């Protein structure tokens, strides 16, 4: 029997099963991701749980203007962006450089060992990591002592606003370096060795080889990873922030999402919290769109 070419549209009756398969997943996303989006209307209300969404009064943009005029607005925005940007500036090159260094290792055994050990921290849970961070960076902790010996503050790093972001990002790198480098390593292994051969014949040193062959080959991967990272620029892993911050470090640690958690869940101020969260998500999406557009325009890679 001759196989007919795939049709334009599926025969629905015959392939109803496929749609049936999709139902639970779609239901999940609609219930847990899209329905809450609808709940965002409470950002425009003075929401009272007992009155529900329909019964609470509408206040238009009041919650938003309250947020914008709060003395914390600037700081929250600044912290959110600073931490994310700094994190990208540190983590990205670190992962790439680590991958490059590893790639240069001749001994397979050594390379494998280092790789394996580097993935280890990724498996440790956030709660435990934060516990360790606290231990090492509180007053008298191992890392605090080293920093103090080098002239830093003697009362610990984790309660010091000047050091919070460094500690936060440092622990991110510690945990994620190995994991992030996997992608680059795999991309590196896909590079045609012949290119290096011919470059060497032309007299290019290792360094030149890296710049002209390796990096361009990684460009696509880097761009995609960067774009994905932008996807949560504004959320900054706030769960970790919540675990590590304290009033002493709010100045540099408090980000938009941790603020939402405090005033929303702890302070019962639901509408206000929802409006701040809404603002956060909108900014996030905008940044991502801009980044994607720029990427599409200037390179051939983009998420969509």
């Amino acid at each position, binding site marked *: 029997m001759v196989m007919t070419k795939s049709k334009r549209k599926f025969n629905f009756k015959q392939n109803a099963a496929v749609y049936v398969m999709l139902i639970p997943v779609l239901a999940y*996303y609609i219930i*847990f991701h899209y*329905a809450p989006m609808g709940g965002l209307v409470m950002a425009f209300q003075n929401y009272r749980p007992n009155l529900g969404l329909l019964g609470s009064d509408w206040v238009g943009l009041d919650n938003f203007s309250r947020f914008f005029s709060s003395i914390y607005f600037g700081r929250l925005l600044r912290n959110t962006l600073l931490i994310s940007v700094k994190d990208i500036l540190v983590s990205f090159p670190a992962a790439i450089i680590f991958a490059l*260094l590893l790639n240069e290792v001749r001994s397979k055994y050594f390379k494998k060992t*280092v790789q394996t050990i580097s993935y280890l921290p990724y498996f440790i849970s956030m*709660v435990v990591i934060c516990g360790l961070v606290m231990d090492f960076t509180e007053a008298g902790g191992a890392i605090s002592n080293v920093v103090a010996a080098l002239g830093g503050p003697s009362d610990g790093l984790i309660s010091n606003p000047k050091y919070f972001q460094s500690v936060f990002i440092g622990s991110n790198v510690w945990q994620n370096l190995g994991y992030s480098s996997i992608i680059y390593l795999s991309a590196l292994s896909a590079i045609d060795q012949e290119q290096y051969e011919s470059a060497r014949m032309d007299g290019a040193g290792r360094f030149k080889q890296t710049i002209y062959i390796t990096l361009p080959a990684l460009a696509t991967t880097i761009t995609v990873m960067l774009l994905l990272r932008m996807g949560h620029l504004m959320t900054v892993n706030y769960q970790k922030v919540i675990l590590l911050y304290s009033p002493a470090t709010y100045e540099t640690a408090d980000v938009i999402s941790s603020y939402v958690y405090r005033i929303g869940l702890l302070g019962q101020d639901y509408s206000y919290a929802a409006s701040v969260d809404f603002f956060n998500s909108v900014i996030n999406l905008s940044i991502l769109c801009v980044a994607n557009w720029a990427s599409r325009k200037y390179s051939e890679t983009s998420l969509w």
Partner: protein
Amino acid sequence: MNKRTTGEKVFAVINTILLCLLTLIFVVPILHVIFASISDPLLLSANKGLILWPLGTPTLEGYRLVFINATIIRSYLNTILYVVSATGIGVILSCFAAYALSRKNLAGSGLITFIIAFTMLFNGGLIPTYMVVRSLGMLETRWAIIIPNCVSVFNIMIMRTSFASIPDGLEEAARIDGAGHFRILFSIILPVSKAILAVVVLFYAIQHWNSWFHTAIYVTSRRELHPLQIVLREIVLQNSTSVLEVGAEPGELNLARMLVRYAVIMVSIIPMMIIYPFVQKYFVTGVMIGSIKG
């Protein structure tokens, strides 16, 4: 192999040293925890620095106190329950979705993919999501820990890519024989996708093993439902060792608090450490496949 220049040799040496240093940095904190957990409790309390060898006489006292603690044991069992069920549900749903979306010419697949992927970019926020969970009556139940976040777009996508790359021939043959979609999925696609399945199971399992935030907000008063991470959080971060007193003799704990803290941390890491070598190769494969989805 070409002869290496001096420059290259120097570079290799420096590189090796650097990498060794890095490895140390990765390993040392973990060693600290391991050794601290078997150190003498009094010395541990007084100690402030890095512990690179057990202080005093090594003791398993900390672990003993952990294992007689019903709260910790129960939360461990809870975690296992949650990881297994959430991963199970997540994997099944992801399989379905990945299979469906990998079918060529599926009407609306573009839209559906968009609907699913869009959730990675935008969400309703903490409070509205909480309200939804509440209105479903899931608060203070195990469902609130298992269901929200049991499906991940990323995992669906990498599965889809993998399914899509399975040669058509296999399915065509099955379809000629009259197999429906479910049959095709279970008898044809899944058996050849063991690798990607392993990866997805792994990713989900890690995600659920480590999750704590949603439990913390959805189940605030029924302690018996709490997973290990929440108990850990009380002990490790809030220094609330009252939890630890369950099971211990009164007074037994007073000096051993620091010790027990480290022992509990170890107990939560050990499963990962043990499983890790076995899953490592899948892990690497998974991340690589994921990167191709781009």
